[in-house]
């Protein structure tokens, strides 16, 4: 079990990346960021293992974050997959349900809800000890 759970945060908005990195680093996570789906796909296919991937949906293209989620869902071990979007729709939520994404949040984010969900999902998957990070 890693001491510091590793997170990949993917968003094309620099301020969102900065804020999430700041907040989650403070909670004890080891953060890697990517500003596009393509960059994130390179990272996950390049022997980088992440305990959780938090991704926006609309980046280079509409709903392209689902491609990353789908690729992440095929990894072994499968990371926790969280989608954070300002453009939620029935179509992309149905896509996320089909991929069996672990969490779907609409922006503006409630950071406490996000942190609680992330911690709960990582503990449940056995990626962190209870009460840590």
């Amino acid at each position, binding site marked *: 079990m890693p001491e510091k759970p590793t997170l990949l945060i993917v968003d094309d908005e620099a301020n969102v990346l900065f804020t999430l990195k700041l907040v989650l680093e403070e909670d004890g996570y080891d953060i890697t960021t990517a500003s596009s789906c393509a960059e994130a796909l390179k990272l996950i296919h390049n022997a980088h293992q992440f305990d959780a991937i938090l991704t926006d949906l609309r980046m280079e293209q509409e709903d392209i974050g689902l491609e990353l989620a789908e690729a992440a869902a095929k990894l072994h071990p499968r990371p926790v997959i969280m989608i954070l979007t300002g453009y939620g729709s*029935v179509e992309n*939520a149905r896509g*996320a*349900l089909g991929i069996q*994404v672990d969490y779907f949040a609409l922006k503006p984010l409630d950071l406490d809800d996000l942190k609680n969900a992330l911690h709960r999902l990582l503990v449940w998957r056995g990626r962190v000890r209870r009460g840590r990070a």
Partner: protein
Amino acid sequence: MSALARQKMALIVHPDLTMLSRYQALLTRAEFSTVVARDIPTALMAITQHYFEVAIISSQLGESGDGWPLAGVFHLVFPKSFVSVIVPGADLLNLQTAINNGVQEIFEEDHAPDAVVSAILTATAIPATPSARNRSRLQ
């Protein structure tokens, strides 16, 4: 580890007795052993007593939306099992709630129960009709 031969089990939780009965008949035909419940306490008791492969839960039991946390508990207890929820409409909020509770599929209330069961059997890769061996056993 030896393979234990046991009948697959399904949990059906719905406030409407007619719907319970229809789902039970369909799942029994697909060779499931079913446990039915009309409320959360009964469903929780069943969850503590059995290992379920499938659950069909109405999102509205005693009051609107109270089926969701039950589906979430089912997913936490049986992470490899298939949990589906019957909803009034497949809107964004219901889809989001489904994802966040670990639900695999949602079906609208006006979906025919046989279509729901058929979709579940397909998703879980369980043959919808009894196998030749099982049919002969019934004769």
